[in-house]
């Protein structure tokens, strides 16, 4: 049982149990050498890749390390902007005479939200 489950439940964790749980989290970070600066870098890079295809709400993006089920996980939470989903499209290079140089698709979902 994790320390947080303890907190939610009735039983208070003993100092020994707290130490063990805290160590697990701290070691998860240490082992991956994930300092806050690196996490911020990863966040920016994921965002730039995903934003090419989807309009992500930049301010809401969260990238965190979690310890779940005995494994270390990188969890990225990237809410898509409500009002639109944007696709950008580059035409295939084998159609040199194409007039289309750049395509953007906006999907407006604002109305669905009200239904």
């Amino acid at each position, binding site marked *: 049982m994790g320390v947080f489950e303890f907190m939610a439940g009735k039983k208070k964790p*003993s*100092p*020994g*149990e707290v*130490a*063990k749980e*805290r*160590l*697990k989290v*701290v*070691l998860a970070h*240490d*082992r*991956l*050498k994930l300092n806050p600066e690196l996490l911020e870098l990863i966040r920016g890079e994921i965002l730039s890749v995903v934003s090419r295809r989807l309009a992500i709400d930049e301010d809401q993006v969260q990238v965190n390390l979690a310890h779940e089920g*005995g494994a*270390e996980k990188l969890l990225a939470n990237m809410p898509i902007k409500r009002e639109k989903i944007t696709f950008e499209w580059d035409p295939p290079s084998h159609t040199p005479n194409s007039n289309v140089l750049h395509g953007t698709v906006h999907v407006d979902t604002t109305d669905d939200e009200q239904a």
Partner: protein
Amino acid sequence: MDSRVITITSGKGGVGKTTTTANLGTALAMQGKKVVVIDGDIGLRNLDAVLGLENHIVYDLVDVVEGQCRLRQALIKDKRQEELYLLPAAQTRDKNAVNSVQMEQLCQQLRQEFDFVLIDSPAGIEQGFRNSIVGADEIIIVANPEMASVRDADRIIGLVEAAGKPEPRLILNRLRAEMVKRGDMMAVTDVLEVLSIDLLGVVPEDEAIIIATNKGEPAVYDKRTRAGRAFTHAAQRILGEEVPLDDLVESTSLLERLRRLMGFGPALGEKPVRSQSS
């Protein structure tokens, strides 16, 4: 002769490396092995005093490496064990006075004469630590059951792996059974689980260690002391004997778990991927 070079290290200072080196060295010599213990803590000489040999030092490790004396001249014979020798650290020299190549050569030289070469590593992850593991076949990690020590131990395990050494084994030192029983201290199984490491021994917190250090006679000489017995058992495990753990606090089912963690049964879970850079 297949001699073994074993380094005792920890990352964090003050957890019991020097105490462990002195006791394992003495215990192995008492089992009839020819042993040399090296004080790798240049500038902070300590092992000599724990062994009660502080008044016998003429030359030291740096003198040997720099060719100021021959290796034999620097080796100090123990007072009681015929087959135990100390190679002391330099006290007034810079801790970077020795490099890795010199240290490896020294280990090679000592292998010719001894069954066991035990190296007492300095704290930290710098040159002194790297020197202490460069020539080692095996690594023993000493840790206390508390956050900072276990965290540093994890870091050291990563660096040991990165250096291409076999998986280290753990001596968990200064365990306080009554605190574990109350839930106020991490249990042996907690530390093993968090570190995913094999156990070599568990040494209780014991006044006998301080008394022994005061006298300059390692605790393994006194069979009545729990810490002395624990170090003797660890030495026997180094020699390949299967010695059960003293029942310090764990219940029978936990002892069963421990047996498995110590490699007497199927392994528990996978090894974590540790950061291997310093």
